């Protein structure tokens, strides 16, 4: 081995130090959101959650129009049909071929053949002959709508309340926090049930009942954040330059807590979906012909032993939605605010 070949002379040339380049930024600058996106992209769970959510939202919007049936159309001649899906009917162990087994020893009966029905009902039909595919996706849409609106209202009230309380401080803060303290003591479940009892059942009353005390969590988080931020130098600088309160709040404080607000809202959405389903389940939810995931599951429970398909699909959809939201929320928390990570 010749050492000259490995250690060439160029390696020993003195490096020139250019002081002006010391401060040069070599990597492209990333905004807050680009940085968050980079981090969330590496999180497998969050990506799975996003894909699941997009798929479910797509079906919730388009699903009801994919079949010729209407979600209210009743027809007792086709009641309680098991699911039958075109291609999947050939995979025997899935039993998506319109057959049903009443007891263990009996052979499976093809209900579609028995009743002379030519059409396919992908998720089967319920006790009144309504198409469950249409109803499941319409129910998903309603459940998502309720949850999103409730979360949004919680967010607006919570941010405003917590923000005002922290920013103005002093006596305002004291009074507002005493109110919160008392409200916090009232169990969420109790408030929601009481409100549902006096309001007429419907989408609006469910949203209202869930938001009566739902905003408390957000207001606490926002208050804590604003308290921390409002005494920092950049706010003082802005004040010294004569900025009004409204400008400081909108320009300086709110942008700094967007991450926290988004993460918190993402965690309230699955809570609201569960809340709606829970209310429907104990008989305080949407009135009869309307479908939400909660009412569908409640209906399905009545015939769980003989026709499990009625509960199966709504149950899968609600579980997947909840899992997806939780995964995305976890991912967002890690990406937007590494300090909040557990």
């Amino acid at each position, binding site marked *: 081995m010749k050492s000259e070949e490995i250690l060439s002379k160029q390696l020993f040339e003195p490096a020139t130090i250019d002081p002006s380049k010391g401060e040069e930024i070599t990597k492209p600058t990333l905004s807050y959101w680009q940085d968050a996106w980079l981090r969330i992209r590496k999180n497998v769970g969050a990506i799975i959650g996003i894909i699941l959510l997009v798929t479910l939202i797509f079906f919730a919007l388009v699903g009801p129009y994919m079949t010729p049936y209407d979600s209210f159309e009743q027809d007792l001649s086709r009641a309680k049909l098991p699911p039958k899906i075109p291609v999947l009917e050939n995979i025997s162990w899935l039993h998506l071929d319109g057959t049903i087994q009443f007891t263990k020893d009996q052979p499976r009966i093809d209900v579609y053949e028995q009743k002379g029905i030519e059409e396919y009902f992908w998720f089967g039909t319920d006790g009144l002959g309504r198409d469950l595919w249409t109803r499941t996706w319409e129910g998903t849409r309603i459940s998502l709508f309720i949850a999103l609106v409730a979360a949004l209202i919680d967010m607006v009230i919570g941010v405003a309340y917590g923000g005002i309380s922290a920013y103005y401080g002093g006596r305002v803060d004291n009074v507002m926090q005493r109110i919160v*303290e008392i409200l916090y003591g009232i169990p969420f479940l109790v408030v929601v049930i009481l409100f549902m009892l006096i309001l007429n059942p419907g989408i609006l009353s469910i949203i209202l009942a869930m938001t009566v005390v739902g905003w408390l969590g957000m207001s606490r988080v926002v208050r804590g954040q604003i308290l921390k931020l409002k005494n920092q130098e950049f706010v003082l600088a802005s004040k010294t330059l004569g900025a009004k309160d409204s400008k400081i709040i909108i320009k300086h404080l709110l942008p700094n807590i967007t991450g926290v607000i988004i993460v918190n809202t993402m965690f309230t959405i699955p809570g609201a979906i569960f809340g709606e389903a829970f209310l429907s389940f104990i008989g305080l939810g949407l009135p009869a012909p309307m479908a939400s995931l909660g009412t569908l599951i409640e209906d399905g429970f009545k015939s769980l032993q003989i026709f499990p398909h009625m509960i199966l699909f709504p149950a899968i959809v609600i579980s997947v939605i909840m899992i997806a939201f939780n995964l995305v929320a976890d991912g967002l928390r890690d990406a937007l605010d590494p300090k909040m990570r557990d």
Partner: protein
Amino acid sequence: MAKYILKRVAFSFITLLIIASITFFLMKLMPGTPFTAQEKLTEVQIEILNEKYNLNDPVPVQYAKYIGNMLKGDLGVSFQFDNRNVTDLILDRIGPSAHLGLQTLIFGAIAGIIFGVIAALKQNTMWDYGSTFLAVLGKSIPNFVFAGMLQYFIGVKLGWFPVAFWEGPSYTVMPTIANAMFTLAVAARFMRTEMIEVLSSDYIVTAKAKGLSSAVVTIKHGLRNGLIPLVTVLGPLAAGLLTGSLVIERIFAIPGLGEQFVRSITTNDFPMIMGITLFYSVFLIFVILLVDILYGIIDPRIRLAGGNK
């Protein structure tokens, strides 16, 4: 410390009084009386019933009577069950609910702690991911869906445990598991975070340096310190158990308080609804108070943050 406890107790009482008042006035706001649906009743009969249930008095008088009776532990008479006292009905029903709740809490907490500790000890391995995945499932899947799955697959298909009712230890297995998923998930996640923090602290390093076996370090030094903060999640867990009790008791036909509550809602039995609501509030507020005081004793820093001086 005494001052802190006193302050917390006073606050709890105010909260309870407010809940009782809200309950009362909300019930007054509800349209109609419980007797409107009974068409066969004559005017005189309705009058007698109104008199019996104090519905003829002006609202403030009714309110004063209600609060006064409530303080004596008398929650009124149920509309649904003739002449039965609400307090008695609640006491009758509380057994199965308390049994299920305790069993759920113990099972869920122990299983959750085990999963959490395993995840923390084997951080970033398949064990950890598996435990985290289980926690996400437990937190996400609604308890009634999980209960339905258990009922269908284990109860109906496999026939291992009875599908419903409350007649012996084997009847408690499925409701307990279905109800415990949330507790398990919360405890597992919390324990994992705590243990990771504890295991990297200086006294663990010291214990290891002394040459103690890793089992002793984990259990005696790690687990004991990691368990303390678990007290803080007891409040949300108790609330979760109550929600679970309503749903699970209904699904498995358990003669408990939750099942009674759901039935009172469907039959508009106001005194019963008010009574159980108050009972739930007292229970939850008591748990929260207990947690705050316990934590104040365990961790002196909380007392200072609690704001005396």
